[in-house]
C-alpha cells in the first residue's frame, strides 16, 4: 500500500535521512525505531508532505506522492499525528471531531442558511460518526468539555479519534505513547490493534516505548544516524547485533 524507496533528505550540509526504504501492507503495523536524532521524524515529515525529500520515491496506492502538499496527502487518506498533542484546545471535544470532517460537509453558505435537507443529513452523519468515535475511545462523557482541559492521555486518544473520523487508510503516529503512564500505554496498545483489526487501517508508528513496539508491530525498521540499520519482525530486530550495538554502544 505504501512504499518508500531510497528516501533521502538533506538540510544544507547535513544528510538527515540517507537511502531509507520501507513498505507497509494493508492492515499492517510498521514501527520505525532508532536512537534520538536518528531521523525518524524527518522520514515522517517527508512521507506526510511537510518536507520535500531531496531524493527517493514515496508511493501510496500506486501513485508517487513525494513533494505533494501535506493537504493533498491527507486527503488521499494518509493522516498523521505529532510528537506533541495538537488539538484545537479552545474548542470542545466533539467540535474537534466535527471540524475534522469539514470536507465531508456541505459548506455552501446558502445551504447552511436555509438548512437544506442535504445539509442536515450530512451534519447528522458527521455527528453520528463523532459520537461513535467518542464512545470508542471512551470520551463520550467529556464530549462538551474544552479539549484543552482533558488529561494528557485523554488528549492523546482524542487525537487518534480525530484522525479516524476522516476515515484514513494509513495512520502515522509520532510517539503516541510519550508521556503516558503504563495503564494508558496498555489502552493505547489495544486501541491501535483494534484500528488495524476492525477498521482495516494500516499504521506507521514512531515510538520509544519498546514494550509497546515489540508487542504490536508486525514489522520494525531501525534507523541510525539517518541510515537504515535493520528491518524485520520484532524477534529478528531484537536479536540483531547491529541494533544491540546502536542502542547499547560498542565495547
Amino acid at each position: 500500500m505504501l512504499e518508500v524507496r531510497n528516501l533521502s533528505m538533506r538540510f544544507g550540509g547535513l544528510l538527515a535521512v540517507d537511502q531509507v526504504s520501507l513498505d507497509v501492507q494493508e492492515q499492517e503495523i510498521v514501527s520505525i525505531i532508532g536512537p534520538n536524532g536518528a531521523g525518524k521524524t524527518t522520514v515522517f515529515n517527508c512521507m506526510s508532505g511537510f518536507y520535500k525529500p531531496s531524493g527517493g520515491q514515496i508511493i501510496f496506492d500506486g501513485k508517487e506522492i513525494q513533494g505533494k502538499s501535506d493537504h493533498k496527502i491527507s486527503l488521499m487518506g494518509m493522516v498523521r499525528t505529532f510528537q506533541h498533542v495538537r488539538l484545537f484546545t479552545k474548542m470542545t471535544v466533539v467540535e474537534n471531531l466535527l471540524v475534522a470532517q469539514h470536507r465531508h460537509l456541505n459548506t455552501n453558505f446558502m445551504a447552511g442558511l436555509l438548512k437544506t435537507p442535504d445539509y442536515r443529513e450530512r451534519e447528522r452523519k458527521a455527528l453520528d460518526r463523532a459520537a461513535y468515535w467518542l464512545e470508542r475511545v471512551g470520551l463520550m462523557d467529556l464530549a462538551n468539555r474544552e479539549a484543552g482541559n482533558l488529561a494528557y492521555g485523554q488528549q492523546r486518544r482524542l487525537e487518534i479519534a480525530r484522525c479516524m473520523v476522516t476515515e484514513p487508510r494509513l495512520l502515522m503516529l509520532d510517539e503516541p505513547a510519550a508521556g503516558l503512564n503504563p495503564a494508558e500505554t496498555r489502552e493505547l496498545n489495544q486501541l491501535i490493534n483494534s484500528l488495524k483489526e476492525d477498521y482495516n487501517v494500516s499504521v506507521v508508528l514512531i515510538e520509544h516505548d519498546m514494550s509497546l513496539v515489540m508487542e504490536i508491530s508486525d514489522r520494525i525498521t531501525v534507523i541510525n544516524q539517518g541510515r537504515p540499520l535493520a528491518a524485520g519482525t520484532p524477534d529478528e530486530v531484537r536479536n540483531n547485533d547491529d541494533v544491540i550495538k546502536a542502542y547499547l554502544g560498542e565495547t
Partner: protein
Amino acid sequence: MPDFLYFLQQLINGLAIGSAYALIAIGYTMVYGIIGMINFAHGEIYMIGAYTALIAITGLATLGIAWLPLILVVALVCAVLVSSSMGWAVERVAYRPVRGRHRLIPLISAIGMSIFLQNYVHLAQGSRNVGFPALIQGGFQFGDPDSFQTSISYMQITIFVATLVCMSALTLFISHSRIGRACRAVSQDLGMANLLGIETNRIISATFVIGASLAAVAGLLLGMYYGSVDPLFGFIAGLKAFTAAVLGGIGSIPGAMLGGLILGVSESMTSGYLSGEYKDVVSFGLLILILLFKPTGLLGKPEVEKI
C-alpha cells in the same frame, strides 16, 4: 438632574459612535485571529462601503424612488457587495501571494493596497467631501424643556439596532455554523486545520469577506450619522477601530465589541466634559496605558507556551 441628563447624552452619543467602531474593529480582530496580521486596508474598505452606499442612494433618488426602507436596503446590499469583494480582492492581491514570508512583507503590501484604494477614490469621486443625505431624521427628547434635554435620535437607534443584529448574527455564525467552526479551528492551528482537510484558503477569504461586510454596514451608518464622506473618511475611523481591537484584545471578537464601546464612550465623555480637541489624545492615551499594563488587551488571553 440636568447633570445626569448631560451625562446620559454623552453616554448615548458615545455608545452610538462606539458601536460603529466595534463593527469596524471586528474586521481587524478576525483577520488578526486567523493569519496573525493586521489588515491595513480595512479602513479603506469601510470608506468604500460608505461611498458605495452614497452612490446607490443618489442613484435611487434620480430614479425617483423615495420609499425609505427600500433605499436603505438597496444601499446596504450594494455597500456590502462592493466592500466584501474588495476585502476578498485585498486578501488575494496583498496577502495570499506573500503569505509565509517575513511579517513585514504583507504589512507593506497591505499599506500599498490602502494607499491605492484611497487615491483611487480621490480620482474617481474627487477629494472634496460629499454630502451624505440624512435619511433618518427626528428623535426623542426627554428632560425639562427649560434646562438641559437629553435627545436620542432615530439615527442613533438605527445604529444600536443594526450593530446588535450584526453582532448577534456574527456570534451565532462563529459558534454554530460549519464555516464558523472551521474559522475557529484555523485561527487556533492553521497547519493542523490544513492537514485535516479544511480548505484554509477559503476560510481565510471568508474572514476578510465577513470583516469587510461589517465595515460596509458601519460605512453606511456613519455616513448617514456624520452627513458627509471624503476619501480620508476611512483613515481615522480605521485607526480608531484598530485601537478598539487592541484595547479589547486583538484576536478576540467580544474584545473588539467591548473595545469599540469603551473607546466611543471615552471619546464622547472627553468631548462633553473636557474639550472635543482632547478626544483623540484620550483614546490613544488609553491605548498606551493598555499596552503598558495589559498588553494582551482587556479580553485577550496571554499566550502561554506549555512546556
